[in-house]
């Protein structure tokens, strides 16, 4: 959801018309996926809540997204780097989740992987073109990638909730595919004639509800309407 919101912030600000629409579409896809998950969570909780409660009524401490998703869009290269790091992970994660013991999650993964494949293709192709492009695009793409590089580790953090679900074959341990993920990243970076960045600050804590300073701003924008007019309908 957070990443979908970030992508929607490109709307009307894309570098070219085609990318404005591409990035808005990607944001929409992400929202579609989170709606499915939020609705399912509400159903599992069984207290009569809806997806809207999940999206609009939780404060920052109850969001468990990775900090990568909150990072600012920056320039186009930064956005592409963020999309690549996330979509590559999601591609492998959803591939594994397609065999989850939980039918709803398996169905969700089967549907969503088609969208993620496209996001991954979009990000990979831009990485290659910007990296292997002009000196300016190469430098900016490298900068975008380097600034977000170490945020990817958090995608592989698991806690006890995850471990319980993994044991029940409902969830999947991302560390199963970590090597495949790293290798594929290295291949793409090489094809883009970029350098593998040095490891930097390693963000963590998203799963415990501890976030970067960005989430507060994102949620205040995102949740404003529902919080200001709780009974609004349209």
């Amino acid at each position, binding site marked *: 959801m957070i990443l979908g919101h970030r992508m929607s912030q490109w709307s009307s600000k894309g570098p*070219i018309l085609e990318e404005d629409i591409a990035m808005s579409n990607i944001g929409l896809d992400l929202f579609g996926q989170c709606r499915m998950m939020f609705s399912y969570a509400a159903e599992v909780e069984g207290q009569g809540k809806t997806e809207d409660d999940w999206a609009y009524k939780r404060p920052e401490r109850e969001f468990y997204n990775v900090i990568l998703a909150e990072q600012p869009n920056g320039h186009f290269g930064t956005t592409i780097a963020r999309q690549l790091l996330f979509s590559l992970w999601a591609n492998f994660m959803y591939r594994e989740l397609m065999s989850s013991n939980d039918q709803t999650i398996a169905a969700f993964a089967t549907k969503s992987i088609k969208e993620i494949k496209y996001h991954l293709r979009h990000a990979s*192709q831009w990485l290659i073109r910007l990296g292997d492009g002009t000196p300016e695009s190469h430098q900016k793409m490298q900068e975008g990638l380097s600034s977000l590089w170490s945020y990817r580790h958090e995608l592989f953090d698991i806690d006890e909730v995850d471990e319980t679900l993994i044991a029940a074959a409902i969830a999947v341990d991302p560390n199963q595919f970590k090597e495949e993920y790293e290798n594929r990243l290295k291949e793409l970076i090489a094809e883009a004639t970029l350098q593998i960045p040095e490891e930097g600050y390693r963000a963590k804590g998203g799963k415990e509800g501890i976030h970067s300073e960005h989430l507060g701003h994102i949620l205040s924008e995102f949740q404003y309407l529902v919080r200001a007019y709780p009974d609004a309908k349209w």
Partner: protein
Amino acid sequence: MSDNQLPLWEVFIQSKPGLPHKHAGSVHAADAEMALQNARDLYTRRNEGTSIWVVHASAIIASNPGDNDSFFDPSDDKVYRHPTFYEMPEGAKHI
């Protein structure tokens, strides 16, 4: 057309397998793969089709409107070129 624009590609979408690809519009893109992706993003948002062709605009040669009179007017008064002009004779009704 300013020099800043990326090359232009014309987009053709096939709504169902077997039908002709129809011209849907155009996109600007740096190369063929990006043109294909851009066309998919812009012209198939509402499930418009199952196949996309992108053609570099320079590969399309169009007829010159100034030639319309010699290209198209002569076919306007030749009714015998339409199958409906002919009556089927009685004995040949079930060809």
